[in-house]
């Protein structure tokens, strides 16, 4: 003990920390003096170690008494905090002793003691705290309200609700904070009485946001310049019901200029939660003057949806104002407005503005032309086809994609016109990739020769796209050509050929089966999945044989079997012996109740914990009723080292008790 005492006084914090750890092995009645010394240590690591030691020892009333003494002394703040932390971990006895002594403690000590009680988790703590909401000391009452806010529960809510009145402003503020934290709805009559009180500030406004009262809207709006964070309350109130939504919108429309200036200022800040709420408020206010600010935010991913949805609700006034803005803009802002119009106009409105969009389609600014492509995708007709084809060959990939997408959409409306144009061109280069995608929509079986250039292109991406397109338009007639692509030197093209064959369907089955026998790795896996889509008379035998192959092929075989709804057979059970635990887990999932309990029991000794866990999960299902399985699970529980698996076994055993 003397040695330990010397080490507790050592100059090195690490030596002192280790000494404390050793103190844990000594009966507490012998070590308590040194423990208290350690609790008052200057170094936080030593204090933390001491708290940890105290939380591990059996609770002893003498020790608790000494800690309480340490708690209520006023000389050493570090000791007091560490004692409070230690007592909070000790629960029951500490709460009893503190409760007994509460009457003799001063206000500051009562506060500290209540913190210990509040954080102890003891079931009596709620009642004890509630009784101190009427403590003679204001600080103790406030602290108690805060602690009840942390603790929650029905009784705490009721007690806090009682505190909300004009008699004790500090307690009311603390109670409001706690109630807001707990998401409580406070009766409107209480809030109404307090609405003019500047001390309660944002807390009363937050509470009003949750009140579901339309009357709250104008009060919150009026207070926004003083309490900008109240915009979030408006969001809450707006979302409550149609009535509150209308009240919020009306209050914002009628709001003073300074409210809108404040909203604009919040929107310009980077604080995302308030910023988004303020954007919504501007949307609801429907002031044309706010449009430039809102438009400037369209390119912000976090705001985009809010703005597009909001402006769609504005209707005609927004469209007219946005259109008026167009000549004053260029570059990205112009692209934003064009893109915005493309999204918010309905079809009829969009078609009436088609000429405007077509003009922007020819813009030399890439962003503007891309945005216009988005617009003509919705509203364009045959007039836009030549320009879109031109854009589909642009160097910038985003432009190509936008033009391709637009061509597909236009192709859905006027397929003949798009097809005629495509048949007049050579499908080459990177632009050809998009054109191939368009062909998928507008092409006809007799158009396959138009894709020939793409199929023999030096660009692998184009060869890939052409295969997909060919499968879509020519179907079974394309099998031979796609089959040739299985010899392509580019792996991506061979994969695309496999997908294309799958797309063709049963007519490609023979080719897929042949290809499965000649390939390896991911390509084989893709072909196996393709077989799962198209089916074949030999599919069951082929797929069973693949269960022993590499992980990716075995997984693909499992998926294919599931797609083809093949009944599991003996060979598939072999997959449960696969080296890859992911495959085994997937097999368990796929094979389901077809796997016997004994086979799953064998997996309880699998070297991978996740497989053992999956096996235990399956055994907890009702279909495995053999009592022997429970015996096996109990045996495994004795040997199992992994906590998760142990917990799962215990759960499974519990579940199985109800299974007869």
């Amino acid at each position, binding site marked *: 003990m003397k040695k330990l005492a010397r080490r507790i006084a050592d100059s090195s914090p690490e030596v002192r920390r280790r000494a404390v750890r050793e103190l844990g092995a000594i009966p507490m009645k012998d070590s308590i003096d040194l423990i208290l010394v350690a609790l008052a240590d200057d170094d936080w690591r030593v204090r933390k170690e001491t708290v940890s030691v105290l939380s591990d020892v059996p609770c002893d009333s003498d020790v608790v008494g000494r800690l309480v003494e340490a708690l209520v002394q006023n000389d050493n703040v570090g000791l007091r905090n560490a004692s409070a932390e230690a007592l909070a971990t000790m629960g029951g006895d500490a709460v009893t002793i503190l409760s007994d002594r509460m009457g003799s403690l001063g206000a500051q000590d009562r506060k500290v003691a209540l913190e210990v009680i509040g954080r102890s988790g003891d079931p009596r703590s709620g009642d004890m705290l509630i009784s101190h909401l009427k403590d003679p000391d204001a600080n103790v009452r406030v602290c108690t309200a805060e602690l009840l806010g942390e603790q929650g529960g029905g009784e705490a809510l009721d007690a806090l609700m009682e505190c909300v009145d004009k008699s004790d402003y500090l307690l009311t503020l603390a109670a409001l904070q706690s109630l807001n934290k707990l998401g409580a709805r406070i009766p409107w009559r209480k809030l109404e009485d307090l609405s003019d009180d500047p001390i309660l500030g944002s807390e009363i406004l937050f509470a009003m946001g949750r009140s579901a009262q339309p009357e709250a809207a104008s009060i919150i709006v009026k207070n926004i310049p003083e309490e900008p964070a109240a915009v979030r309350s408006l969001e809450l109130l707006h979302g409550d019901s149609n009535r509150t939504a209308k009240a919020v919108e009306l209050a914002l429309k009628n709001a003073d200029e300074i409210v809108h200036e404040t909203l604009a200022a919040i929107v310009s800040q980077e604080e995302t939660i308030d910023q988004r709420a303020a954007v919504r408020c501007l949307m609801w206010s429907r002031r044309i003057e706010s449009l430039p600010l809102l438009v400037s935010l369209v390119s912000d991913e976090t705001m985009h949806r809010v703005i597009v949805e909001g402006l769609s609700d504005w209707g005609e006034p927004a469209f007219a104002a946005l259109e008026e803005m167009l000549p004053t803009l260029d570059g990205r802002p112009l692209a934003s407005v064009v893109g915005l119009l493309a999204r918010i106009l309905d079809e009829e409105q969009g078609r009436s503005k088609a000429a405007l969009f077509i003009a922007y389609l020819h813009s030399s600014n890439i962003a503007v032309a891309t945005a216009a492509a988005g617009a003509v995708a919705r509203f364009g007709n045959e007039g836009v086809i030549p320009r879109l084809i031109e854009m589909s060959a642009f160097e910038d990939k985003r432009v190509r994609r936008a033009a391709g997408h637009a061509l597909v959409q236009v192709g859905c409306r006027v397929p003949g016109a798009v097809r005629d144009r495509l048949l007049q061109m050579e499908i080459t280069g990177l632009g050809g990739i998009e054109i191939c995608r368009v062909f998928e929509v507008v092409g006809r079986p007799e158009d396959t020769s138009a894709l*020939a250039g793409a199929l023999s292109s030096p660009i692998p991406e184009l060869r890939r796209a052409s295969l997909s397109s060919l499968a879509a338009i020519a179907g079974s007639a394309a099998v031979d050509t796609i089959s*040739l692509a299985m010899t392509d030197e580019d792996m991506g093209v061979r994969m695309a050929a496999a997908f294309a064959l799958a797309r063709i369907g049963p007519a490609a089955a023979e080719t897929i089966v042949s290809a499965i026998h000649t390939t390896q790795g991911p390509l084989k896996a893709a072909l196996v999945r393709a077989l799962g889509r198209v089916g074949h008379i030999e599919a069951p035998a082929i797929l069973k044989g693949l269960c022993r192959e590499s992980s990716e092929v075995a997984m693909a075989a499992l998926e294919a079997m599931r797609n083809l709804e093949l009944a599991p057979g003996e060979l598939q059970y072999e997959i449960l012996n696969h080296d890859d635990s992911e495959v085994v887990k997937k097999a368990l999932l796929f094979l389901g109740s077809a796997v016997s309990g004994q086979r799953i029991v064998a997996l309880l000794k699998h070297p991978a914990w996740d497989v053992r866990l999956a096996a235990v999960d399956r055994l907890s299902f009702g279909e495995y009723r053999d009592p022997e399985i429970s015996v096996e699970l109990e045996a495994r529980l004795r040997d199992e080292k992994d906590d998760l698996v142990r917990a799962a076994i215990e759960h499974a055993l519990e579940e199985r008790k109800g299974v007869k």
Partner: protein
Amino acid sequence: MRLGDPVIPLSLERFRLLRDLINRRFGIFFSDDDRYLVESRLSERLIHLDLLSFDDYYHYLQYHQDGEHELERGAEILTTNETYFFREEYQLKAFSQEILPELHERLINKRRMMIWSAGCSSGEEAYTIAMLVRDSGLFHGWDVRIFGSDISARMLAKARRGIFGTSAFRATSEDLQRRHFNPAQGSLQVNEDIRVLCHFGRLNLLDEEKIIFVGRADVVLCRNVLIYFDKRSKSRALSIIYDRLNDDGYLLLGHTESLLNLSTAFELVHLRNDLVYRRPKAGSDGF
């Protein structure tokens, strides 16, 4: 390999080991006389891989994780030969004046024709065939597919680009150049209407499993390819080609090649301009 790069000596014993390895995989055969060719061509691979001797290279091919790919690269280097458009003109004359008209007549109901250039190298042969098909004027609106295969990905990439230097045109008339090519990057590029007829793929002629992707061909050109194979591999390759040919389908070999002592499955056809082989109609004895 650049001029001045060192040549790493290859002993006869090691040469035979390497030769047998390549032969087993690709059927390509090198006689003892080819030792110096193998030594000089493969030395660049040893230098590239930082290997000091052909013992190390053999070990690499056998046991390194990239050994399989390296074997392909080595075979590619050893078999790459320069070729050119309209090579062996008299045979092409037979093809365009006699075979194509006959195929047109025979296939007119299906309007579909498949020609396979086996061992196409950088694509000159496949494109030559495409030009002859176009110029014949017989196949407009047909589904014509000319498939060039080779074991060299590098050669296939060149074939797909379709851009060729002057040496590829030593047997191409100016008229043909003008009609079927366009200037590109200081060379000539095959016109799009020719390029679209040609497909390319990577195939080892002895890989029976993958060859099925070729489908059935009406003509197979396998010119100056079998010369690299030993007798057993030649027979296997011919058997594979036989299987891929439609009845009455033609096999065109190089002018120094014949099926003598290799296969009796094909029938010899005396055309006005050349002798070619043909797969007899079903019912005849094949392989």
